[in-house]
């Protein structure tokens, strides 16, 4: 069913956990479908993802895609990270069973949400700074 790489990531997931002072956090999925993924990122001055962690409630595919996406984008710039798609995540794992392609393959979406969250916060901060500077 699952490829070896899926099972390897399921067995030894990379970057599990939370980042207490994360710059951005993204969550996708819902309990109805049985998949919830949360991704935390720490971004440096050069817009590079310095640290990334995840927590996932879900099946083997959900855990493995979460794990592999953190590995794929750690050290990448945000713009590079935004180019990663769910499809690429599945391909990186050597493919996923057909019935897992839609519901459990949302890790890239969670990542994008985390980046969005980070950028929204930055915008808010900047406007705060501006206001303060005024």
């Amino acid at each position: 069913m699952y490829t070896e790489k899926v099972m390897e990531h399921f067995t030894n997931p990379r970057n599990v956990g939370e980042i207490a002072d994360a710059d951005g956090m993204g969550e996708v999925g819902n309990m109805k479908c049985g998949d919830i993924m949360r991704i935390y990122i720490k971004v440096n001055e050069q817009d590079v993802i310095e640290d990334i962690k995840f927590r996932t409630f879900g099946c083997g595919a959900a855990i493995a895609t979460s794990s592999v996406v953190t590995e794929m984008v750690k050290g990448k710039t945000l713009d590079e990270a935004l180019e990663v798609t769910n499809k690429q995540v599945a391909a990186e794992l050597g493919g996923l069973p057909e019935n897992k392609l839609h519901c459990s393959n949302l890790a890239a979406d969670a990542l994008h949400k985390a980046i969005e969250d980070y950028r929204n916060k930055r915008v808010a901060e900047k406007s705060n700074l501006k206001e303060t500077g005024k």
Partner: protein
Amino acid sequence: MAKIYLDHGATTPLHPEVLEAMKPYLTDLFGNPSSLHSFGREVRKGLEEAREKAAAAIGAEEREIVFTSGGTESDNLAIRGVARAARQRGNHIITSAVEHHAVLDACLGLREEGFDVTVLPVDGYGMVRVSDVEAAITDQTILISIMLANNEVGTLQPVAEIGKIARGRGVVFHTDAVQAIGNLPVNVNDLHCDLLALSAHKHYGPKGVGVLYVRKGTRLKVFNFGGSQERKMRPGTENVPGIIGMGRAIELAVQELDKKADRIRKLRDKLIAGVLEIGDVRLNGHPTERLPGNVNVSVRYVEGESLILSLDLKGIAASSGSACTSGSLDPSHVLLAMGLDHQTAHGSLRLTLGAGNTEEEIDYVLSVMPEIVSRLRSMSPVYAGQRRD
């Protein structure tokens, strides 16, 4: 690595004596039972002996036994066969929300053909209330179908009482006994049923063969046409080795019932107690009115498939009612019908014990479970925030 099979609810290995009984029919005794010559006659004899065994096992007469290709076909033949035959008398069917899909979907599919289907709710243990059945019967009711033992949570239904009511009201009564046979006494007269479905591979027989018991006088309209096998109720060359295997398997299932069920029940109770100790684990299904081999629990904050995969990596075969394994987007309809929320349903784990399991195996399972659960919980976003220790 240890290989521990705790998925007897999904299927069982062949009993060695069943395989022995089948062997001649996989080699020398290959004739077509419909053939007149000696090759055919010998096989016909074996087939009729298997029918005798199946009949004896459930208190039926031989001519009330129809061999099918499995539980699914038996259920469909019963439900759709009766519905079409009784169409003139009425169009109302009663079933329950915790039936196997072979029953539930067969009933619901009849809505398209103008039937009115009542799907009865169950209580928190997954049990149908007899009073609900009684209240649902109208003068249009032609069929009631309620299972004997639930395949997911193991809950036993009050089938004998329901059968008595159906009989009293002149309604045909079908029961799916696929999970029950070999685990509790099954007698068509005690159950007052008109139809009863069995599947060999759930009781140490071969896959791809089942029985539909059809009480004499019960009218079915069949939907497969062809030869005149099984009194035209089930045309097509018979799955001879399968039927021989089914006959032997059901004979053994009944003979070994008491001895086996008691032993398995003890292991089950030990397993349940041990798993509950992990904490934030709830038992699904009835505490006592349940199949001797069934353990079904929900492990909070964790998803079922990831539990199964983790157990599999430790050599332990289990199943779950999570959406990921139910073949649909929703988790088990049985768990939802029992009132479980989605998270709890997704976190369900079914361990079904069988003849081959030992106490050592249970000890092993209990030794690896806590670690597996805590690893998965440590990854879970819902656990992190809501720990309740």
